[in-house]
């Protein structure tokens, strides 16, 4: 009985936070890569991908490999160790593709700045298609930012690093 109740409460949950995009076909697939930092943006992205938020309903999905992604979602300051990983992920993505920076660290290095271990953020290194500032941005902020993308096409971006 508990199991049936659990299924029903998820299937018919109230206060869904989905925002349905207008006139968009398949979902835009995001490949998330955490290039360093505290992991807070990753936690908020995970929250966004779970109930009661509805990332799928808003027209987005999370890709398990960069080869299946439309957008590269970067969080955390760019550590020297992760720079080649980020480059490889970008190169593995099919065209057209774009970059989203989630959180202050991904934009300008945030609290971590530029030092012996980190290269700072991507702000002055690549063309960023969507900036989601905050430390960390909330799931609602991220969802609003993502939905704003659907109003226009993703601009051609230059490779990172």
């Amino acid at each position, binding site marked *: 009985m*508990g*199991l049936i*109740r*659990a*299924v029903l*409460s*998820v299937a018919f*949950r109230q206060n869904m936070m989905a925002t349905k995009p207008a006139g968009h076909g398949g979902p835009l697939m995001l490949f998330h890569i*955490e290039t*360093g*930092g*505290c*992991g*807070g943006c*990753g*936690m*908020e992205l*995970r*929250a966004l991908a*779970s*109930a*009661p*938020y509805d990332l799928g309903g808003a027209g987005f999905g999370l890709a398990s490999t960069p080869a299946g992604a439309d957008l590269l979602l970067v969080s955390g300051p760019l*550590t020297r160790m992760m720079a080649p990983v980020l480059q490889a992920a970008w190169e593995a993505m099919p065209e057209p593709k774009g970059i989203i920076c989630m959180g202050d660290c991904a934009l300008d290095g945030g*609290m*971590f700045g530029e030092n012996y271990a980190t290269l700072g953020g991507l702000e002055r290194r690549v063309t960023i298609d969507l900036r989601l500032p905050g*430390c*960390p941005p*909330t799931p609602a902020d991220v969802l609003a930012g993502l939905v704003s993308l659907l109003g226009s096409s993703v601009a051609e971006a230059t490779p990172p690093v």
Partner: protein
Amino acid sequence: MEEGCRLSGRVVAGQSVAHQSAFCMAVENACGQGVEEQAGLGRVALLEMERVLHHLYTLADLAERAQAPLVAAHCMMLREAMLEQIAPVTGSRLLMDCCRPGGVRLAEAEPLGGVCDSLAKLGQAGQEALLELWESFPGLSARLTGLGVTRAEDLARVGLEGPVARAAGQDCDTRRVLGLYDGLWRYTAGRQSGSAADRALLLLDEVAESLTLLGRIAPRLGDAAPGREALTLPDAEGMAMVEGPWGRVAYWVQLHQGRLAQVFCHNPAAAALLVFEETVKGQPVEDMPLVASSLGVSAAALDG
């Protein structure tokens, strides 16, 4: 000092209160100053809220990896229901920057007691339903039973404490020796076979325990807003520790000429990685993420 405190809250997300509390207490010990009772209780409330939110997040991750997305959805829905009440008061969904040297700083400090009471009521009902679902969901317990069993000698060798050691039968909890918890905390008796299933059920037990503790704090916090005292910074050293969601978090600080000169931080991340390396021997490769999640292996914490 402010920047050091902010940075300590970003060593690893989900454990910000533990890191910032230990950092602030170390600074206060160096200064030879304590905080007022309400501020101390406020920190305990924040530590326990963080533990509940962290454990629910970890349980959701475990359930997702164990092919039980329905259970994961319930964990995250309960977590979000709690965050709806917590975030307006703390000003941060991850409880960052709430603890400052000398006390606490909240977006809205007055309702903290009411939020503790409300969380205790909301959470206890939710936790019972979650426990029932966890134990009855087809295949979930079977998937985790016998997986990633930790050995007592490995835990002792690397000095790993926290829920991983408690789920393997060790009686170790920093809350036992912290004056902040006097009259509030009681020992949680958990499952003690040391497998991923035991760790998951222990986390569920600890959620219930923390919610009970929040219910006890609520009347003591009342409507009084916990505040913050100004500190005089001498040339001195201080250290402090708290029980974070994955175990003991300790800070040592050295103050010099009114500034933070040196900081050393200890957290369980490195020990968890060493135990993980021993535990995964002989396990199927596809089980590695599940075992890592149940042991609290965190790249962010290791980086910090």
